[in-house]
């Protein structure tokens, strides 16, 4: 067996040591890792740029729309107010109390034996409206109280089909001191005051109730 002498063993050992230098290996490792990190960071940067661009577009769109939306909201409020006032006007016009038909009904209910000396009326309330009438007059006939009573019931009968809750009551009914000529004959009289109450329209609907939180 031939004897081999390695006269370079020190050089080789140094080379081997240099090859597996931990610091060098660490530097290589770190460099590789850094390259990976740099690539990933670049990828993230591109992604971030895309997101920023998207945000810029969205923000620009929002900045354009926001003033328009605010103006639109203001306009909507104005139009709502106008429409509400308009509806209120229509409601008011349509909800008026008409006196002419009432006068027509009353004139038809008064017989020839009765003279109305005073007629007063007042309408009050919103929604369901109350009309109070005061009819004063003079009834003539053989039984003037009967004539006045017939008038009172005739008023209620005439008005009931057209108005709600019609009531017709005597405030006063007294024998008159004077006689009048009716159909050429002197007849007794009675003075009366009839109070008539009636209702028109609909009761106002209650507003929405508050819900406790």
């Amino acid at each position: 067996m031939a004897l081999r002498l390695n006269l370079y063993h020190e050089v080789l050992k140094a080379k081997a040591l240099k090859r597996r230098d931990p610091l060098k290996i660490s530097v290589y490792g770190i460099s590789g890792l850094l390259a990976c990190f740099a690539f990933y960071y670049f990828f993230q940067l591109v992604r971030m740029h895309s997101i920023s661009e998207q945000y810029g577009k969205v923000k620009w769109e929002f900045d354009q729309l926001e003033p328009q939306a605010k103006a639109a909201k203001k306009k909507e409020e104005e139009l709502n107010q106008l429409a509400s006032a308009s509806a209120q006007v229509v409601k008011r016009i349509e909800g008026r109390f008409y006196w002419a038909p009432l006068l027509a009904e009353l004139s038809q209910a008064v017989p020839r034996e009765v003279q109305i000396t005073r007629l007063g009326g007042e309408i009050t309330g919103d929604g369901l409206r109350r009309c109070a009438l005061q009819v004063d007059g003079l009834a003539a006939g053989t039984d003037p109280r009967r004539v006045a009573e017939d008038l009172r019931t005739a008023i209620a009968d005439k008005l009931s089909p057209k108005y709600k809750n019609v009531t017709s009551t005597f405030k006063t009914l007294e024998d008159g001191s004077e006689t009048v000529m009716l159909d050429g004959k002197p007849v007794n009289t009675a003075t009366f005051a009839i109070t008539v109450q009636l209702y028109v329209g609909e009761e106002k609907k209650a507003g929405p109730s508050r819900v406790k939180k």
Partner: protein
Amino acid sequence: MKLGKEEIQKIVLGGLLMLGVIYSYFDLLLGPLTKRAEQTQVSINALGPEIANAKAQIAKSHQMEADAPKDTLPMRQVEAMIPEGAPVAWFPTRMTEFFKKQNIDKASTRMTGESVDKDMPGFRRIAWGVDLPKVEFVPFGQAVAALENEEPLLEISAMQIDSSRDDVEMQHAFLTVNNLVKQ
């Protein structure tokens, strides 16, 4: 293989360097970038519904504007019915002319009060007393009917008719009317 002291030191140094690099990368570079990206994404997501709301608001407003002429027609008609100027300058004259047209020659109108209606901004209600000293019942009833038909902004709130002792054919009428006028 046995590691020498110098090699161990180098391994530790390499490890420390590695840790430093990783820490710096995540904490100083990638971390803030990711955080900013997330925040931007959140902002984009938040703006989405706001843009949708704004668009819906604009569309709704456009629709309302398109419908406005129809919805506000009564209001414009009412405004056209009310003459310009102080009501006390035109309303009594208007009443006198109206009753004259109805063959009731004497009519005097006075303002008795006014009130603001909170349901109807831009308008106020004026109460007037219309005195008709000589009327016959039937023509008076016809005049009232005509008044109620021709003047939709006017409502008779009270009336009083008294027979006259001097002239049994004639009555004295007094109307309390409310009229809607511009503020």
